[in-house]
């Protein structure tokens, strides 16, 4: 052990650049896995916790199955409370209002789940019972008086109070349906648990006070149910839920509190799969870098290992020596990778917050993720170092006496093309036939990807000579006669060349995938957004906006048309006979078509006909996601659950809609009012007279009605800009990973060419001796690199296109999103050019080294 320790530490210290390169590979892989794992876990926990916190300790919640924002009768409370298995039934009224004097936010909040206009969320609660289900942490003052359920008291979150310069004892004025009301601020709570609702813009008032001020006498929004301990297990709770649902009837929904988080977690799931896949690729390229760097070290130390063999070190000792160096690097690299992973997680979490529109909890580093990353990091390091270690052990003692090193090509290089061809054929077959059901497509896609890359890699050695012949004219043109010498050199160390080309191929493929996904997604999203935002201005409010606001907006000079939109949740019986919650977008067909338009996705759409049909009532437009997922089309009937029960609606058209992951049905305003008793708009889309300035009109409307009606007005340009930014940030982490993969390809070329130069020192000396200039030596090395770059670039392009198509297909199958594949021609040229440029820059150092070789030293031989 002392021998290994001595040799290991000295060897690692003496080659700082090699050390850094190897460490970089390990750190990259470990950091990628850990940061993505932490971010995923944090995001999932935060999403679940937010929804859990709002109901806190409640095991179940009871809501109305009707979508009535005014709530349901509190008479049901006693029935629930007295039901067997129920320990407590806690009522609450949930209101969205605004603090008087609080200007409407000037900007619309943005996330993947839509847009928000701020405001204050209030819960009317029973002060004695509510703490049974929600934990309030008083930080100042006191909680609501327990024996006065209609007092004019309010408790706010401390951070919100700070922002509004409020302290205990102050009078707080809120906007209610009964007018402006003053309440006394009796206490402050911490921004935790229910204090996180609406990002801290939350307060509680007595139940009766809420019912009186907001015209909800005798009504509640929700009943939180606490089950007796015997029913708190999963199975028992599920049976309680089912039996309570059946007892209460179809007018009510008995749900798990966390089910409200399902939409977000589902969205996250798709994103996370992409991230996990990319972390796997980061590990692959990291492993390549480790292999490449260790190979380099073995070549550099060939004579040293030969000498050690001569003086009695056995093959196993030499192999063990290299592996021990790998273990040391693995441990150090893993430790650094874990540190970097935690830091990267902070950055990734920031992006996740943007995507979710939610402040995430503090990053918790789960110990299992750390252990997994560490084990994977060490395992990959060892696996990557095994071949170089084995090669080191094979070094003959005679190498100590030679200047010229030799490299042996194994049978995998000679016959690997057979395995490669089989892999390519099998993966092509799977792609064409696609025999697996959609829900495993992504997994299958991943396996197909690995097989494709592996197959392509194994074919490289056998096809190198073909590539050399094909590219020879270009080489001659760019590098002259020397070019031929350089490009034919890559046929000599075929294992090394193959792996270098492969690494570059993966890097280019990843870049193509990112470009194709971004362009395809953006292309379709831009198109959809133009319709979704529509018109010129987007008007929203923290309060529901009725017909009066509609009329006011229409009356503004310069406004050509105004159309309302309202999103609310509705249950339907999907074609699989399951009850599912989706979104309903209500619109007024007449005014909608004056402001904007839908994007119909069915073949030969009759847009006007579809809108007329919807306007007539009883018909809806479904999203392409729903159509794809359930095989629905125009003329089919779907069942929505309305106030009076299930009602069939006919599908009048299929439209592109990405709201709520595409689970949205669009119907008429009249149907909304008639069947779902909703009357207010979430937003108005405003079209202004052509020629007028959008910003000026925005100012005008804001001055007239902004403060009075608590409106938030933005131009659609601004909103689309925000969405673009959101998309760019979401894809940025993919860009970073793709660039890192290219960087690894870059280092791979540097290493490979440097090894080639070392091995051919004598030969280069001879060429210089017979008259080759330094410049010609440089051109020779650059030509060798160019061929690596071109082969890697072209193969990377081919596999990148295949890979991005697989991703798109998988996304369609899993989520119903039908994206149009988009990869502009200039991107294709750019990819190959990038690979070529990377190869040239990477080759500059080894080329300079080759040019510096001294003729006499190089040609010294026995």
């Amino acid at each position, binding site marked *: 052990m002392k*021998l290994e320790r001595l040799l290991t530490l000295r060897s690692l210290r003496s080659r700082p650049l090699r050390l850094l390169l190897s460490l970089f590979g390990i750190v990259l892989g470990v950091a990628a896995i850990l940061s993505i794992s932490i971010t995923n876990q944090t995001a999932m926990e935060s999403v679940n916790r937010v929804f859990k916190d709002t109901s806190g300790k409640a095991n179940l919640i009871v809501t109305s199955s009707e979508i009535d924002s005014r709530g349901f009768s509190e008479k049901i409370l006693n029935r629930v409370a007295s039901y067997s298995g129920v320990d407590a039934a806690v009522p609450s009224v949930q209101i969205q209002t605004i603090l008087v004097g609080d200007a409407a936010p000037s900007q619309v909040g943005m996330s993947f789940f839509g847009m928000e206009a701020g405001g204050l969320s209030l819960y009317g609660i029973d002060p004695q019972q509510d703490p049974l289900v929600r934990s309030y942490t008083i930080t100042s003052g006191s909680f609501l008086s327990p024996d006065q359920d209609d007092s004019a008291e309010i408790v706010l979150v401390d951070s919100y109070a700070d922002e509004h310069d409020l302290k205990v004892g102050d009078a707080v004025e809120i906007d209610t349906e009964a007018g402006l009301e003053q309440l006394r601020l009796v206490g402050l709570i911490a921004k935790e648990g229910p204090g996180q609702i609406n990002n801290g813009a939350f307060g509680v008032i007595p139940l009766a006070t809420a019912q009186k001020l907001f015209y909800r006498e005798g009504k509640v929004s929700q009943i939180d149910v606490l089950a007796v301990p015997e029913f708190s297990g999963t199975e028992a709770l599920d049976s309680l839920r089912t039996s309570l649902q059946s007892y209460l009837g179809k007018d009510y929904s008995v749900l798990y509190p966390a089910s409200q988080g399902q939409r977000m977690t589902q969205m996250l799931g798709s994103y996370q799969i992409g991230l996990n896949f990319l972390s796997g690729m980061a590990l692959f390229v990291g492993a390549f870098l480790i292999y490449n760097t260790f190979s380099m070290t073995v070549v550099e130390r060939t004579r040293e290992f030969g*000498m050690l063999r001569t003086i009695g070190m056995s*093959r196993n000792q030499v192999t063990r020596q290299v592996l021990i160096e790998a273990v040391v690097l693995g441990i150090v690299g893993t430790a650094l990778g874990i540190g970097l992973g935690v830091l990267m997680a902070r950055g990734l979490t920031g992006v996740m917050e943007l995507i979710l529109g939610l402040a995430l909890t503090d990053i918790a580093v789960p110990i299992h993720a750390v252990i997994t990353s560490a084990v994977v990091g060490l395992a990959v390091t060892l696996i990557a170092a095994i071949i170089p270690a084995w090669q080191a052990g094979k070094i003959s*003692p*005679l190498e100590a006496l030679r200047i010229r090193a030799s490299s042996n090509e194994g049978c995998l290089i000679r016959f690997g093309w057979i395995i490669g061809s089989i892999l390519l054929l099998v993966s092509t077959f799977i792609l064409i036939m696609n025999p697996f059901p959609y829900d495993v497509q992504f997994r299958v896609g991943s396996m197909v990807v690995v097989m494709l890359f592996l197959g392509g890699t194994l074919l490289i050695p056998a096809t190198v000579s073909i590539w050399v012949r094909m590219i020879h004219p270009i080489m001659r043109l760019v590098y002259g006669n020397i070019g031929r010498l350089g490009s034919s050199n890559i046929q000599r160390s075929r294992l090394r060349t193959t792996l270098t080309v492969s690494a570059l191929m993966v890097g280019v493929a990843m870049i193509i995938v990112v470009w194709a996904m971004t362009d395809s997604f953006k292309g379709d999203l831009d198109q959809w957004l133009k319709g979704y935002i529509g018109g010129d201005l987007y008007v929203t409010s923290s309060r529901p906006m009725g017909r009066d606001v509609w009329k006011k907006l229409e009356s503004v000079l310069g406004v050509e048309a105004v159309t309302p939109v309202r999103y609310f949740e509705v249950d339907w019986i999907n074609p699989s006979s399951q009850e599912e919650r989706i979104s309903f977008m209500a619109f007024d067909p007449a005014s909608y078509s004056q402001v904007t338009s839908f994007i119909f996705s069915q073949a030969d759409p009759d847009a006007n006909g579809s809108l007329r049909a919807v306007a007539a009532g009883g018909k809806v437009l479904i999203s392409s996601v729903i159509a794809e997922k359930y095989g629905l089309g125009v003329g089919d009937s779907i069942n929505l659950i309305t106030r009076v029960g299930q009602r069939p609606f006919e599908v009048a058209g299929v439209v592109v809609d990405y709201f709520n992951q595409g689970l949205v049905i669009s119907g008429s305003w009249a149907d909304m009012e008639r069947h779902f008793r909703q009357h207010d708009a979430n937003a108005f889309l405003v079209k202004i007279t052509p020629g007028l300035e959008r910003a000026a009109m925005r100012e005008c409307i804001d001055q007239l009605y902004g403060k009075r009606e608590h409106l938030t007005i933005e131009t659609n340009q601004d909103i689309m800009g925000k969405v673009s930014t959101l998309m760019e940030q979401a894809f940025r982490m993919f860009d970073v990973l793709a660039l890192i993969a290219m960087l690894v390809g870059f280092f791979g070329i540097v290493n490979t060419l440097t090894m080639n130069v070392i091995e051919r020192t004598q030969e280069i000396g001879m060429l210089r001796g017979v008259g080759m200039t330094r410049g010609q030596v440089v051109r020779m090395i650059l030509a060798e690199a160019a061929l690596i770059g071109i082969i890697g670039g072209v193969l990377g392009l081919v596999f990148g296109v295949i890979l991005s198509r697989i991703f798109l297909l998988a996304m369609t199958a899993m989520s119903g999103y039908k994206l149009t594949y988009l990869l502009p021609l200039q991107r294709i040229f750019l990819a190959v050019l990038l690979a070529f440029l990377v190869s040239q820059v990477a080759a500059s150092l080894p080329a300079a080294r080759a040019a510096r070789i001294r003729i006499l030293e190089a040609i010294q031989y026995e």
Partner: protein
Amino acid sequence: MPVLEARKLVKQYLLGKHQVNALSGVDFIVEAGEFVAIMGPSGSGKSTLLHLIGGLDKPSGGEVTLAGHQLSILKDKQVTQIRRRNVGFVFQFFNLLPTLTAGENITLPLLIDGKNLRKYQERLDALLELIGLTGRSRHKPDQLSGGEQQRVALARALITEPAILLADEPTGNLDSKTGTTIMELLRRSCDELGQSIVVVTHDARAASYADRVVFLRDGAIVSELYMDKSAAQGDSLRRIIDELEKLESLGAEAVQSI
């Protein structure tokens, strides 16, 4: 008893498609405490012979017995062990580990053999004194001159008290003065420590330090000279040069006769 015995050694290898006979049935014996030099022109097979007797390579035919061990019947691991404990090597290009100090380079074979270095401190000091580098043991190779590095290599070869020391062109990379120093050290180790030595060299002056000079040509021993230990250095050198000239003229005649 001979410390090394090689009988009917044959070595053939393929150079592209051609078979090259590097050695054609060579018999070579080294007695204990003997200093033998092997000379010959390039391609004569002298280095090949050294590689075979040191267990660095396997012969195509014949047998090598080193310190009583018949190498052909042993596996690579066993040959390596024998080499570790019974053979010391000195290379033309020194081959010191650049990351180790002079002292650490010298004790490297002991470390490889799993020995407790503290027990060999005295031996190390003695060798450092022999090679004239006492006080330089902590210096790295890049802090030593070429001659000093070769002296360290020599000490490394001697630390295990090997049955035989094999040197491949030990003065090939040194100036004549430094080369002389190395050869004198080799001579001293033979005289004072009873070390058996085989040196491959094309340098007649280096060969003149040996007790016996063996001449190879075309893979076979063509001549041998026994040196008179009492003779002056210059006389020994003259005899070797004369023998080389004789062999050269014989070689030219052979070429002319083709």
